Structure formats: structure tokens, C-alpha cells
């Protein structure tokens, strides 16, 4: 097992410089995804590694007037320590369910979002919240909605090149929400996924509706959401059934079991709007 050349940039500028010179370099923060299925004595990593966990610019988290801003190298534990006053409840509930507390002390928010093999737990919640991620390179910074980190066939499509530096979660009030993990395991597997739902009403009218579901594949349809927004609340039982049914076709890309669970969860979400 050979050793890797590890770069320890002292700040973001230095990190971006290394990234510019070695565009394919492995970016390593907490490493919980990279290392979860290695198992051998030594760790197999590429020849060059860019260690970003200690970059001060990536470790900050805080609230502005409009956003919760989280550095990409903030751990899931540190995210939870921002407290319920700062975090939307669906985000804190989801973060609390990630791995064990020891894993949460290592796993970073950025690492969770940038996973390329599958969607990890934070993605569907952040997608629901219309969060933005900042990608930086030496040329500058781009903010991208997390919903764009999905390919046409529903797989993760985190862009190559660039460093994920910050996540911005809009501060919004939600009247109803639901997050549920499926798959009978706290470990990522083909049958595991996370469902996220949030809705807001104003003067008895549904003004916002977000539904996202992701495991190995991601599902979200803003078109379906737009078709339901504007309804009066509470929804009738017939409307709940009709809207849940409209999501059935969307689930056809999923395995039979996951599709059933997804539709049941969608039904459950709409029932919250029928109360």
C-alpha cells in the first residue's frame, strides 16, 4: 500500500491553487464516505490528496437574515450544535439520524452532499429547502441549487472540478414537514433512501410544496408541486388520493419496494395537509 502525497493548504486560496494545478485530486474532509467500504489494513487513496477539513473558510457556520450558511467542512455534529433555533426542524431531524454520534463527529456536510456513488441523507432535505451550494475554483465562485446536482436519469451529478465551500439554506417558515428514512438500516444500501416533505400555507392557501426522495436515485418534480400549489387547505381526501396517485408514475424508476414506500410517504405527507 503506497503512501499518498497529502496537501495541507493553510487557506482556501492555497487549496484552490492546488486544485487548479491538479484538477483530478481527491478532496478529503471527514472521509467517512471514502473510507466506509475499504476494510484493508492500509487505506487506498490516490497518489494526491487535498485535505480540506481544517480550512478556516470551510469551518464557519452561522445565520444571516435570510440564510443559514454552513461551511462544507462543518461536521454533522457541529451542524446539530447550531441548535434548533438555527436549523429547520427537518434538517436537524435528518442530521440526527445520520450514522452514529461518532460518525457524525467526522462526517462533513460537504462530504454528504458531494457523494458521487449515491445520494446521502442531507441531499433530499436540502433539495426540499432549495438550498444552494457554492462551488469555487480559481476563476471564481458559482452558486448552484442542490436540485441541479442530479443527472437526467436521477443519479448524483456533482460537477467535476471546483471545491464545494459553502451551503446556503434559505430561512423560511414551514407549516408542515415530514422526513423519514426507509430501508431498515442506518447504513447506505440499495434499499435505503430518505423522504423529505415541507409545505407552507398563507391564509388557507397552499403556497409552497416541496417533496424530494433520494437514495441511489433522486426524485423531485417541481412541475407536480406547481400543479398542487394554490389549493385551499385542508385538502379533501379525494385530493390527497389524487395527488398521491400523480406521484406514482414518478416512482417508476425506483425498485418496487422503494416505489411503494415513496407513494405511501407522499400519501402521508398530503394527509398532513388534510388535517
Amino acid at each position, binding site marked *: 500500500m503506497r503512501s499518498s502525497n497529502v496537501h495541507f493548504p493553510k487557506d482556501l486560496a492555497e487549496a484552490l491553487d492546488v486544485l487548479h494545478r491538479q484538477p483530478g485530486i481527491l478532496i478529503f474532509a471527514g*472521509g467517512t464516505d471514502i473510507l466506509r467500504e475499504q*476494510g484493508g489494513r492500509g487505506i487506498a487513496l490516490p497518489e494526491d490528496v487535498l485535505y480540506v477539513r481544517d480550512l478556516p473558510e470551510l469551518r464557519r457556520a452561522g445565520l444571516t437574515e435570510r440564510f443559514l450558511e454552513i461551511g462544507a467542512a462543518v461536521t454533522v455534529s457541529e451542524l446539530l450544535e447550531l441548535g434548533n433555533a438555527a436549523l429547520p426542524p427537518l434538517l436537524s431531524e435528518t442530521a440526527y439520524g445520520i450514522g452514529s454520534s461518532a460518525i457524525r463527529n467526522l462526517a462533513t456536510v460537504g462530504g454528504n452532499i458531494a457523494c458521487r456513488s449515491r445520494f446521502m441523507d442531507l441531499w433530499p432535505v436540502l433539495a426540499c429547502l432549495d438550498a444552494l451550494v457554492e462551488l469555487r475554483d480559481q476563476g471564481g465562485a458559482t452558486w448552484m441549487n442542490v436540485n441541479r446536482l442530479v443527472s437526467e436519469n436521477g443519479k448524483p451529478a456533482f460537477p467535476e472540478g471546483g471545491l464545494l465551500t459553502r451551503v446556503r439554506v434559505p430561512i423560511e417558515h414551514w407549516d408542515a414537514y415530514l422526513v423519514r428514512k426507509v430501508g431498515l438500516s442506518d447504513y447506505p444500501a440499495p434499499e435505503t433512501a430518505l423522504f423529505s416533505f415541507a409545505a407552507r400555507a398563507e391564509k388557507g392557501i397552499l403556497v409552497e410544496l416541496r417533496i424530494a426522495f433520494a437514495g441511489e436515485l433522486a426524485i423531485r418534480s417541481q412541475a407536480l408541486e406547481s400543479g398542487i400549489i394554490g389549493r385551499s387547505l385542508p385538502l379533501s381526501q379525494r385530493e390527497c388520493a389524487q395527488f398521491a396517485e400523480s406521484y406514482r408514475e414518478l416512482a417508476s424508476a425506483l425498485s418496487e419496494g422503494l416505489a411503494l414506500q415513496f407513494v405511501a410517504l407522499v400519501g402521508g405527507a398530503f394527509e398532513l395537509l388534510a388535517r
Partner: protein
Amino acid sequence: MTISFILNGEDVSANTRSVDRLSDILRERFGLLGVRSDCRCGRCGRCLVFLNGRLVPSCIVPAFAAKGKEIITIEGYALTEDYIDITEGFKDAGVATCGFCDASKIMATAALLEHTPRPSPEQILDQLSSAPCRCTDPEAVVKAVQAVAERRSKRLYHRAL
């Protein structure tokens, strides 16, 4: 590469491959056998150490990630008064363990009480899931950690007086 870090309160260095596991370094270079290196995927909890005050599975911490950090293993923690609170608290609660998971349970309890002096049963069970073991009785473990919290709280109170 040579990595330098603080280990159980002392400045140390180790000449190691950047991709060696911290758990193996602690065991083999420093003889700290209380840290195991078994599952090598961060699940079994037998390699828990404090890294900059946070409980982490050291088997998925590569050597380079330990550079400049402060690490405390069970051996270092065993020299603290908090350790005595935990071992005595477990004893007071009459909790028997298999013997192999003791260090993991102690470290997990320590990490919990550092941030949450009076944890709820749910918080205790969540935290002790970092140290899974076939011998764990959920009721006993809640009772034990609550006994530890009580003991620790009394000690700190008396110290403050």
C-alpha cells in the same frame, strides 16, 4: 511522512505512511492496545478516541488527518477523575459488560457527559449506539449512564464549593 500530534497530553511524532490508520498507529507505534483496529470501517466502536475533543472512530482516520491534532485514548482518559466517575457509576448501577466493549462504552459515555451533563434516555441510547455490543442491555445502560451523571455532578458540585 512524519506526523506530529498531541497524544494523551504529550507531544509525539510518528514516522508513518500518510494512509496508515490512526488506530494502527496508536496500537503499533505507541503500544496503546486499548484502541482496537478491528472492523476498519468505523462501525464496531472498538477504536473510539477523542480527536480535538470529539469522539471519533480512529480506524477511519488516516494518519494525515491526525497531524497537529490532540488525541486522547482510553489509556489517557483512564487517568482522569471523569473516568473514575464512569467506572464507579457503572459498578454502582450493577451493570455487567462482556469485558471487550468496556473501553468503547466508557469513551462514548465520556463524550456524552462532556456536552450533556444530564442526558435523557434517548440521548444515552443514541450515544451508546456508537459502541454496539451483543452484551448491551438498553435498560441497564441507561441506568448506568444516569448513575455516572449523578456521581459526576456531585463531584463537580463539591469541587465548586
